[in-house]
């Protein structure tokens, strides 16, 4: 095998040699997780080879709408994102976080639960740039503070990330607005750009880490020429130019802080079912509840962590009642957290523009449209009873080409 450059080195890998790449990863003991078609959607699941990938499939997405459609070509990564994100694996929906010592009630110090046997480390195949950013955002939440989450840390440590740059923008995508794509810049071991020009089907592979370079070194590959670089750049440029949605982030934090009583919150509250779909599909939402798992028939008591959502009434329960009782306040909490207070908490917005919340909202509520409506009617929320220029305005995120 030819020697390969580390950190930014690039090679071309033929589509048919992709299994060699996956094999090199598997040989290192990783469990491969990648996209697969199931139940009418592209989800993340265990895969064993390139044959498991959704070749020739793409998705059509809009507010409250997701359909798979056959492509005219055999692109392996010709879709955008499905309802799941990588938090399914890094931040599992339920985990045991503490178990009482087996030696009996009250004996011994309890510690965070260790896995029974060490699980194989995870390799994620096909991480979209928006999702790379989302992983980095959750890293900051679970690992970047004064305390760490041991379950997340164990799963995240050593996870091998193979990113895939986006060859098309989805109907609800706005990663460009959030500076989170459509090109992967960092945070990956390898990044692929699928090239299907000139009748060839190959991948331009960029190296992000030393172990990524080692893996690539075991795969047949060609040097990258200028035409190939340009082809890859063209792919992502064209994707960037065709975003399905747009979110104006200028002064967004202060805009939301200053418009806590904007009438738009009432408008969206009439549509929002507080079903929590958006928080489940969102790759950065991190709220979880800690519940007691009572010991039955001699089994030790323990604590379990499960996904929670600020849309539930229980989320803000205090002294027998919720602080945020109205659906209006809960929608506002979610959106203000995602786009504003997150910045004060963690230094960046919590949104990566993946569009999942728009696609999977049964009411088709669109976060970009809500933000634009608040911006349009901003300053009118100072108590004037109606007649706002922004009231009912559906001047929202632009659809189609940005």
């Amino acid at each position, binding site marked *: 095998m030819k020697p390969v450059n580390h950190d930014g080195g690039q090679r071309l890998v033929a589509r048919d040699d992709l299994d060699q790449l996956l094999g090199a990863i598997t040989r290192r003991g990783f469990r491969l997780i990648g996209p697969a078609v199931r139940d009418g959607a592209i989800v993340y699941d265990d895969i064993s080879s390139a044959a498991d990938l959704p070749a020739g499939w793409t998705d059509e997405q809009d507010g409250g709408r997701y359909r798979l459609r056959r492509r005219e070509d055999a692109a392996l990564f010709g879709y955008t994102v499905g309802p799941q994100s990588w938090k399914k694996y890094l931040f599992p929906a339920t985990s045991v976080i503490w178990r009482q010592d087996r030696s009996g009630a009250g004996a011994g110090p309890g510690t965070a639960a260790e896995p029974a046997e060490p699980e194989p480390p995870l390799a994620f195949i096909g991480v979209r740039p928006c999702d790379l950013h989302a992983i980095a955002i959750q890293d900051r939440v679970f690992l970047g503070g004064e305390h760490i989450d041991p379950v997340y840390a164990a799963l995240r440590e050593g996870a091998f990330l193979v990113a895939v740059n986006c060859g098309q923008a989805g109907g609800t995508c706005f990663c460009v607005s959030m500076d989170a794509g459509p090109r992967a810049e960092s945070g990956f071991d390898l990044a692929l750009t699928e090239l299907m020009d000139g009748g060839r089907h190959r991948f331009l592979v960029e190296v992000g880490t030393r172990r990524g370079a080692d893996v690539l070194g075991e795969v047949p590959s060609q040097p990258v020429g200028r035409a190939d670089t340009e082809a890859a750049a063209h792919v992502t440029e064209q994707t960037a130019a065709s975003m399905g949605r747009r979110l104006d982030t200028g002064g967004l934090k202060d805009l939301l802080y200053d418009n806590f009583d904007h009438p738009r919150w009432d408008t969206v509250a009439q549509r929002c079912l507080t079903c929590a779909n958006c928080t489940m599909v969102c790759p950065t939402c991190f709220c979880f509840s800690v519940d007691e798992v009572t010991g039955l028939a001699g089994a030790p008591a323990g604590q379990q962590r499960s996904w929670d959502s600020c849309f539930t009434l*229980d989320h803000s*329960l*205090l*002294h*027998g*009642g919720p602080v945020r009782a109205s659906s209006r306040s809960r929608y506002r909490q979610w959106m203000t957290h995602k786009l504003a207070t997150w910045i004060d908490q963690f230094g960046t917005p919590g949104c990566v523009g993946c569009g999942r919340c728009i696609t999977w909202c049964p009411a088709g509520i669109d976060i970009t449209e809500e933000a634009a409506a608040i911006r349009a009617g901003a300053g009118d929320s100072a108590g004037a009873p109606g007649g706002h220029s922004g009231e009912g305005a559906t001047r929202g995120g632009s659809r189609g080409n940005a």
Partner: protein
Amino acid sequence: METLEHELRSHPFVGDLEPAYLALLAGCAENVEFWPGTFLFREGAPADRCYLLREGKVALEIAALGRGPLIVQTLGAGEVAGFSWLLEPHRWQFDGQALEPVRAVALDGPCVRAKCEQDPRLGFELMRRFAHLATGRLQSTRLRLLDVYGTSHAAPR
């Protein structure tokens, strides 16, 4: 010996009235003292004076059948005991008992009312102050009505 005017001037309730009005009020005023356990006024009796408290503590109480007297408010130095003289039917609503030795300036109700009739501006100034006082008592009562220290009845966890 302090004059009544001086004592009125040093009481926060009327102290900022112009000197002419203080002199007028002094004509309706006298110094009074109450030993602990004695009553400044009794529920139901004719209410004909107002007490500007200078020292001590007064409890506003109501006798409840089978429960003994309940204190609804205590008042201390710088405060005012007694509104009932101001408006019909001029009857005390509560008992007012001295809990500690009380020294106060008592203002005679009919005397003050007559002076207010003669000089409506004096009337307005006194009414304004009483309205402010009453609002404060109302806030205090409402806050207690909210029973904020009570236990919540739903058990979340």
